[in-house]
């Protein structure tokens, strides 16, 4: 019985750790409830910008200012190999003022990014 118990406990720990990590990688917010596009291919964003309901901007679990966002975008562009190859995903809370989203879009546009995706969630 001992090896089986070992394996069971290992699996249990693995599940607990991965569930916790999966929870932490997503910023909690209410995305716009829309169907999205009918596309089968989903490209890697390379950069995900979260805009919370109160207007705060969160990237990689860290709150950033618009100025700091510029530096992150530049870094992401460098990693992607050019602005045309980077297709950032903006996850904005549906209750957030669009003025804040406009600021983010303008910032992204000022770095040469043109194709931006707005995250949605399917209605429950």
């Amino acid at each position, binding site marked *: 019985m001992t090896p*089986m118990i070992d394996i069971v406990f290992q699996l249990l720990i693995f599940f607990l750790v991965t569930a916790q990590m999966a929870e932490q990688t997503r910023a909690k917010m209410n995305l716009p409830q829309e*169907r999205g596009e009918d596309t089968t291919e989903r490209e*890697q964003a390379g950069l995900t910008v979260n805009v919370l309901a109160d207007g705060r901007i969160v990237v990689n679990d860290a709150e950033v200012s618009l100025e700091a966002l510029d530096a992150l975008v530049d870094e992401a562009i460098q990693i992607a190999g050019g602005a045309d190859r980077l297709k950032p995903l903006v996850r904005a809370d549906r209750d957030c003022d669009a003025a804040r989203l*406009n600021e983010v879009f303008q910032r992204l546009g000022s770095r040469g990014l043109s*194709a931006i995706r707005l995250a949605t969630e399917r209605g429950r």
Partner: protein
Amino acid sequence: MRFNRRGGSDRKPELNLASMIDATFLLLSFFIFTTGQGQTESKLSPNLRVERGTDAKDDLEPQVLEVLRVDGKPVFRLGSSDIDSREQLLAALEALPQEKGLFVRVYGGIEVGSAATAIQCARDAGFETVTYVPAK
């Protein structure tokens, strides 16, 4: 007196691999399954693709849908008509020539949800190119 040395106590110990193989295959199948299922943050949500336009007014803009707040309510303005329901907006957009693309100008003071609704309706109406224009 002779003792039987072929008794059970003198047998060489054998390693039973069956259970280890069982566990290994279980772990292997688990990892394969979870690797396929796990998605990065950027892929977790459906999304709407938009082109980003300039915030400058351009007289050559072919078709502009404005999303703004009028009398405290979100309104979709298409030309001279103000639309306040999703169904009407979709019907109005479907009547437009889709090949020219659509500019969606979003004003401050409106919720992101309304902007997303406008973009979704444009996509549903068949517009391939939807350009998001931040309004000042």
